[in-house]
């Protein structure tokens, strides 16, 4: 693994201006299975790939409902996600108790970002090793937010995180213009098609065999409380998606950017923070 002179602690800067521990935490997101978030004019959708860790176990829950208007999909350390989701739930509940209305999504994410940031600035904490895609609906419409372990958050039009998520992002980027005017069925199909590309290559080829992989779909929007779709609905949309079109291309080689880095030498120069998929403008 990495050996750096300046990665002993989260609070230690490298001379290049980087926080190595925080960057390592970002790598944890790429260990989780892929998940996609996207939205049309009135609805936000999350699609997650759940793979059982062994044939004997059930798959991990990838999508966590937070409140009626909001849910998250996770990639990374599940235990960290559980802590964050408990925090989000209690914040939403407190807000509802005080104000008799739902927590505005952008404010909740700012709040979460502030909480997560403190872990990157204190020697006795470590960053949360989980990336989140947040789908929510409030008076400003549907939202998809990406939250990273570095406590940065992006207000996305569509995005994907997790292992091999680059192909899903390519698919989303290609079809970005069509999303806004999609029907709800179509937007779910787009999500499924995007995520099919992030299946491991061998499973992708035998994707007729649905036992090999498992998707979870959640939807939230106008007059639609956050809902994780049932098994039957999943199959319906999976069939619909396959009729609709070709899934995203699987990654050409396995040294895809989004796999955890394995090289001994991390690239030397500082990287600019990259915005992966088009983000929303501030109002």
């Amino acid at each position, binding site marked *: 693994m990495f050996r750096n002179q300046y990665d002993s602690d989260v609070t230690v800067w490298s001379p290049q201006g980087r926080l190595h521990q925080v960057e390592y935490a970002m790598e944890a997101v790429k260990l989780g299975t892929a998940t996609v978030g996207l939205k049309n004019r009135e609805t936000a959708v999350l699609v997650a790939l759940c793979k059982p860790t062994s044939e004997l176990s059930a798959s991990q829950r990838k999508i966590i409902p937070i409140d009626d208007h909001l849910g998250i999909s996770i990639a990374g350390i599940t235990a960290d996600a559980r802590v964050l989701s408990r925090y989000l739930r209690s914040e939403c509940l407190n807000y509802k108790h005080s104000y008799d*209305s739902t927590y505005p999504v952008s404010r909740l994410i700012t709040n979460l970002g502030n909480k997560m940031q403190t872990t990157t600035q204190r020697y006795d904490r470590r960053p949360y090793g989980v990336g989140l895609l947040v789908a929510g609906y409030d008076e400003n419409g549907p939202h998809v937010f990406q939250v990273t372990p570095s406590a940065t958050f992006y207000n996305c039009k569509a995005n994907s995180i997790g292992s091999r998520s680059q192909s899903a992002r390519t698919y989303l980027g290609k079809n970005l213009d069509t999303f806004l005017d999609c029907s709800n069925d179509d937007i779910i199909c787009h999500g499924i098609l995007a995520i099919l590309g992030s299946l491991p290559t061998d499973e992708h080829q035998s994707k007729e065999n649905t036992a090999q992989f498992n998707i979870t779909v959640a939807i939230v929007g106008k007059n639609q409380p956050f809902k994780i779709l049932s098994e039957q609905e999943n199959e319906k949309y999976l069939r619909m998606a396959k009729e609709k079109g070709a899934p995203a291309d699987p990654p050409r080689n396995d040294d895809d950017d989004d796999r955890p880095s394995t090289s001994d030498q991390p690239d030397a120069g500082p990287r600019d923070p990259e915005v992966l998929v088009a983000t929303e403008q501030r109002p």
Partner: protein
Amino acid sequence: MYNNYNCLAQPLWQNGPVPGEFYNFTGGQTHIQKLPRELTTAGPYGTKHSTAAITTGSSVLGIRYDGGVMLAADTLVSYGSLARYQNIERVFKINKNILLGGSGDFADIQSIKRSIDQKMIEDQCCDDNIEMKPKSLASWMTRVLYNRRSRMNPLYIDVVVGGVDTEGTPYLANVDLRGRSHEDYVIATGFARHLAIPLVREKKPKDRDFTAVEASELIRTCMEVLYYRDTRNISQYTVGVCSANGCGVEGPFQVNENWTFAETIKGY
């Protein structure tokens, strides 16, 4: 200090570390609840809470109509039976969706008004075009007022919250000093509850809401009746109007005074 051993001054739920809790470094994100000193610490002679309103505003009347709400209150703040301050507005614009009318202890109204104004500034600081809705403010008021009554230290106020929500639906509610709240098409506090509500209910068409014209006409007659019959009223009043088109406080207006009947009244 043995003065702090006053068991009456112990707050209901705060103070002291929670058993089994971890030590928190300063600057951590774990919120250590800090209450205002007057809520936690006993003074040298124990703690005394206010038991009555001192400077008071009288009635507030609110009427909901088809496109919004109207709130009216006279501009008098009394000191006991003395008409002490005669030109003080008691209907406030909170933001572009919310009006607040306050009666009861005017110091407490000013205090809660400052807290609300601070919340509105925090809303604006988010810079996300989301403003508080009247329903949310009414809910928050019940929480605050109920909390204060549970500490045996209530705010002696009776407020009317009115406004429109995102869809332009009017909302009108009352929250009192114990944290009780209710919604209706007509809301009144103080003497207006006895004098104005029957007048408004009498005029309410069964099948529809009031129109703006009907509402303003009712406000005018009700403020007149209140002026004649409530000794803690004066003839000047302000009216707050909130609809989807905007929100503001108008006036001051003057009640139509007619004292010609006075000479017929004898025997007092």
